[in-house]
């Protein structure tokens, strides 16, 4: 039985249309949304200051098997990165395409150390050759991020420029660089502040909460499945 896809589409949509309820468009849904928005303003439990939220971030990330490190200022980030790479013997390092990494000139700083082999947008004539296998060879993948949600220790990451989606996925350790000003309390705080559905969405945006994990064998928690085995955040400022 071969059917014409356009016809199938038409038939299916026609059937769906006859099954649509014409009842008051969307009133219950908007009413619920009103209630949720007003309840959010009433809920004052939990951390209130940025310091408290950063503490929450630290403990939540730790609980998930990740790690938060701090740097006094932006300029102190490169040495924190070097420390991490050295203590873990990471030699091959991939750098994402991010404003923060540019600002602290991370590539130049790391290039001062002969032991590191860097992969970034300048180190190859055709960066796209590096997708997949080359990035999978790296032990450390470094990116910035759009925001961090402290309550759940969630990193909001838009995959753009060099490294794209694979750089935060293939290397054994994913390192996220961020500033304190990028930390939000709850998911809804970030949502309200940025209205994420309004602007143009990137091709892929990922919310990352801890290193990859599974509990598929007897519900025993194992971190490090297909994605990174380690997740480290360095927070500056």
């Amino acid at each position, binding site marked *: 039985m071969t059917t014409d896809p356009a016809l199938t589409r038409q038939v299916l949509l026609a059937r769906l249309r006859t*099954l649509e309820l014409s009842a008051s468009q969307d009133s219950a849904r908007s009413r619920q949304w009103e209630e*949720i928005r007003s*309840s959010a303003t009433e809920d004052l439990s939990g951390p209130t200051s940025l310091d408290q939220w950063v503490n929450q971030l630290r403990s939540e990330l730790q609980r998930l098997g990740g790690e938060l490190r701090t740097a006094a200022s932006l300029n102190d980030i490169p040495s924190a990165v070097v420390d991490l790479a050295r203590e873990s013997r990471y030699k091959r390092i991939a750098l994402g395409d991010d404003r923060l990494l540019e600002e602290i000139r991370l590539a130049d700083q790391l290039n001062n150390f002969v032991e590191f082999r860097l992969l970034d947008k300048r180190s190859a004539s055709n960066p796209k050759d590096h997708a997949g296998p080359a990035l999978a060879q790296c032990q450390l993948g470094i990116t910035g991020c759009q925001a961090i949600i402290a309550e759940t220790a969630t990193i909001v990451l838009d995959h753009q420029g060099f490294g*794209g989606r694979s750089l935060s996925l293939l290397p054994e350790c994913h390192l996220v660089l961020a500033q304190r000003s990028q930390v939000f309390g709850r998911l809804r705080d970030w949502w309200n502040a940025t209205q994420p559905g309004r602007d143009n969405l990137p091709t892929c945006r990922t919310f990352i909460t801890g290193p990859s994990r599974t509990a598929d*064998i007897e519900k025993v928690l194992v971190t490090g499945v297909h994605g990174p085995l380690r997740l480290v955040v360095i927070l500056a400022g």
Partner: protein
Amino acid sequence: MSSGTIPFKNLARKNLADVQLRGNLLRATQHSLAARASAVSEVPEWELLRTAAHAIKKEAVDHLATYLEQFEAQVQASGGHVFWAQTGRQAAEHVVAICGHHQATLAIKAKSMTSEEIGLNQALLEAGIEPVETDLGEYIIQLAGETPSHITAPALHKSRAQIGKLFQEKLGCSYTDDPQKLTQIARSRLREKFLQASVGISGVNFAVAETGSIVLITNEGNGRMCTTLPRVHIALMGIEKIIPTFDDLQIFLRLLARSSTGQRLTSYVSIISGPRKTADFDGPEELHVIILDNERTSILAHPHMRESLFCIRCGACLNTCPVYQRVGGHAYGWVYPGPIGAVLTPEMQGLTRGRELPYASSLCGSCSAVCPVKINIHHMLLWLRKSVVDSRRSPWTERLIIRIFAAVMKRPRLYRSSARLARLLEKLFAKRGKGLPVPGWSLHRDFPPLAKQSFHDLWKQGGLS
């Protein structure tokens, strides 16, 4: 894809006698329930979120044509392709055709219940394409040649020792029953596949009409691999996966992980809006979204059953169900087990197939109480029982007994003399303090003993002061 036509009763009896299985099931479900309870208790607005999620799904499901068309237009605007499939077969054939077009011999798959539903792996194999399941649980059961027994934890029925032996046998590695080591073995085996495959197949957790985004939620990172590395990404979704706006997504993100695994948020939430753009470094060049009906419109046509399309496949109702906890997923005979499976299977596979499933419930209502989208699951089971009875598919003995009961209840004198007769029979045949033995029925439960005197007699004696 299914256990054929073996009756639930037989499958359940076999599983109930399997001590190992019952241990595995109990451990897993209790673990998930405890995790869920603690995660839910942290959210003061939990009930409000459930009500909102219900309202959002209701809006979407009541206006599917509108939102699906909007979604389609958005996907196309971002450069993706949309294919509508009325049957599972059409969907599977389209997947095979796409693979053929790209001369793919290997397809990597992220966990998708919808693909199980349409028997996609079988269709791919027949076309000479190797489907590789990459979710650890799915990988395990694919190696074992079994089907998932739970919608979020497919290999929950297996112990670590069983998995260790399976890996030793199928992968030729040395035996270990350490979950950490077993996971590492799977990681290295599947890494190669991830880097080789040109086609990645995934399900869809949520499809956002407003932005044309598909949302994928996974813990292991395999979902990200399947939708990042291959040149082609095929996403398979039932028509009911749609939600109206991007903002709506927030509500479901706050509910799903806590309900499902007791996590505050799942490790990875990927929001994919179209194929790779020129400025993007990687990601699939082609994105195909398949929108599948496969009997969902028949559910839609049934006003009492519509709500079953609100399901976000969290698995909480399975974990909490006293029947599921004991018989396990395979007893239900089709891809969707547990309370929601007992609703979906008869609806999607017909009452002949699923006639017994509405009865595989104690109607305790625990499923409805935990459901994050507030589906009235046990009421739907009751409705299905009604249609079984209406279509005269219930056992004739049951129908006869109900008929006699109805006749007696309608006639006061007959009722009183029957009650006297029953008391007499109880005295003669029942054990002390127990009710009348009813052949078959009282094998697993007791008939309640009758009161010494009826209310009517007491009233007449004036002994009710």
